C-alpha cells in the first residue's frame, strides 16, 4: 500500500511537471542569460501592443456575443436563431484557414466596392489591424458565447418579463437586470478571449500589419531563427499575463458560485 503514497501524486503531477514546471524553469534559465539584451523598451512596446490588441478584441467580442445572445430573445425571428448557430462555428475552423479565406474573400469585396461605388477600402482589408481583429472575433466568438449564453439561460426569462410587466423597456431591463447578473460570466468571457488572442499564432502571422508585433509572434520568430534562448523573455511575459488572467477568471468563478 505504501507505494500508492508517492505513485498517485507522481502520476497526477506528471502533466504539470513536464508540461509547465520544467519548461518554465528552462525559460527562466534562458531569460537570466538574455536578460540584459532582451528586456528593453522594444519588449515593453510589444507587450503593450499584445495587451491592447487582445483587450480591444475581447471587448468587441463580448459586445457581439451580447448581441447574439439577446437579439434572438428580443426578436422572435427563427432566422436569427439559425444565424447565431452559424456565427459561432469559427472556433472549429483552424486559424490559418480563417486567415487565408478571409483575405481571399475580402478581395472580391474590395473590387466590388471599387468597381461599383468607386470606394477604395483595400487599406482597411489587406494587412490592417481591423481585419486581424475581425478574424480574431470570428475565431473566438464561440469561446465567449457559450458561457454567457449558458448563464443567461440560468437567469431565465421571468426576471426580464417581470421588468417588462413593470413598464421597463428591453434596454432598461438589459442594463439594470441582466447586465449586473451576467457581470461575472462577461468578465470570464472577456478574459478567456483575451488569453486566446494573446496566444494565437497562425492567424496573427497571416493577417498582422507589418508594423504590429505580438509576444507570441516575437517568441515564434526567435525560435524560427534558431535563437531559442532569446524567445524566453517574450514567452515568460506571455505566460505571466495569461496566468494573471487565469487567476482573475478563477476569482470571478468563485464569486459566481
Amino acid at each position, binding site marked *: 500500500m505504501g507505494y500508492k503514497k508517492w505513485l498517485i501524486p507522481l502520476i497526477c503531477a506528471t502533466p504539470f511537471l513536464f508540461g509547465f514546471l520544467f519548461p518554465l524553469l528552462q525559460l527562466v534559465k534562458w531569460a537570466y542569460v538574455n536578460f540584459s539584451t532582451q528586456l528593453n523598451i522594444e519588449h515593453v512596446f510589444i507587450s503593450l501592443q499584445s495587451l491592447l490588441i487582445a483587450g480591444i478584441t475581447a471587448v468587441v467580442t463580448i459586445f457581439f456575443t451580447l448581441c447574439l445572445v439577446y437579439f434572438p430573445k428580443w426578436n422572435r425571428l427563427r432566422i436569427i436563431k439559425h444565424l447565431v448557430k452559424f456565427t459561432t462555428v469559427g472556433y472549429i475552423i483552424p486559424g490559418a484557414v480563417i486567415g487565408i479565406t478571409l483575405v481571399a474573400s475580402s478581395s472580391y469585396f474590395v473590387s466590388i466596392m471599387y468597381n461599383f461605388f468607386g470606394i477604395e477600402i483595400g487599406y482597411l482589408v489587406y494587412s490592417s489591424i481591423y481585419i486581424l481583429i475581425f478574424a480574431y472575433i470570428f475565431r473566438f466568438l464561440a469561446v465567449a458565447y457559450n458561457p454567457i449564453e449558458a448563464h443567461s439561460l440560468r437567469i431565465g426569462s421571468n426576471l426580464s418579463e417581470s421588468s417588462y410587466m413593470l*413598464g421597463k423597456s428591453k434596454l432598461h431591463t438589459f442594463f439594470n437586470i441582466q447586465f449586473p447578473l451576467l457581470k461575472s460570466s462577461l468578465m470570464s468571457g472577456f478574459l478567456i478571449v483575451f488569453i486566446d488572442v494573446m496566444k494565437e499564432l497562425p492567424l496573427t502571422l497571416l493577417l498582422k500589419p507589418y508594423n504590429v508585433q505580438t509576444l507570441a509572434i516575437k517568441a515564434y520568430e526567435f525560435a524560427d531563427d534558431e535563437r531559442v534562448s532569446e524567445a524566453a523573455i517574450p514567452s515568460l511575459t506571455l505566460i505571466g499575463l495569461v496566468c494573471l488572467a487565469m487567476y482573475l477568471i478563477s476569482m470571478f468563478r468563485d464569486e459566481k458560485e
Partner: protein
Amino acid sequence: MKKNSTHILKISELSKSFDGKQNVLSDVTYQLEQGNICAIVGESGCGKTTLLRLISGLEVSESGTITILGETVSSINVNKAPHSRKVGMVFQNYALFPHLTVKQNIQFGVAKIEYDSTLKLIELMGLEGKEHQYPHELSSGQKQRVAIARTLAVKPKLLLLDEPFSNLDLLTKSSLRKEIRKIAKLLSLSVMFVTHDLYDAVDIADEILFLSDGRIVQECDTESLMHQNVDEIKVYLEQIQEQAKHLLSLKNK
C-alpha cells in the same frame, strides 16, 4: 353573474398553440367581474399558466380577443405591450431581482416621485424591517409578499398570480391566502390565480374556472359550490372529470 355588472376582463374564443402544433388553449371564453377573485383550477399542462401569460401579454394568441376595462388589448390586429394592459403578474418562482434589496425590488417599476406610496405597501404586506434585505435572505412566504408588493406598486387593475401557494408550507399558505383576499377587497382589485389545489380555490376565490386540456370545462361561483354537501361536490368534480375525458376523446377522434 349579476346583471349590469362591470367586467374588468373579457376573453372571447381565445386559442393558442406553440409552433403551430397542438392547441394549448382552445376557444376559451370567459368574463371576470370587477373586484372578483377567480381561481383557475386544472391538472398540470392544461393551459392555466398560458392563459395568464396571454392575458398579461407575455404570449401572443392565434385567435380570439382579450378586453381589459373595455379596451381590446389582444386580437388579430391588436397586441398591446404587457405594461400598457393595466395588469400585474406574479410568477411562480417570484422572479425577484436578486441583486436588489426588498425596497429596491418594490420600487423598481415606480417613478421616484411615488416612492412614498411603496412604504405603505411594505407595511401592508408585513415587510417592515426587511427593506434592506436581499431576496436570498428571505423565506418563501416573504419572497411571495415582496413579489406581490412589487406588482401592486404599479397599481394594476387586474392581478394575475401563477401558482402563488405552490412553494409555501401549510401555515404560510393559509395566512397568505387570507391576506391576498383581504388586500384584493381592500384595494378593489380583481385577481386571477392559477392553482391545482381546489382547497386554495375554495378558500379565497369568488369564482372557479375548471380547465382541462386547454378548454374551460366548468365555471362556477364558490358560494354555490360551498352550499353543496361533500358528496355533491365529489359528484360534481367527477362530472367535470368525465366532461374533460369526453372532450379529450372527441379531440382524439
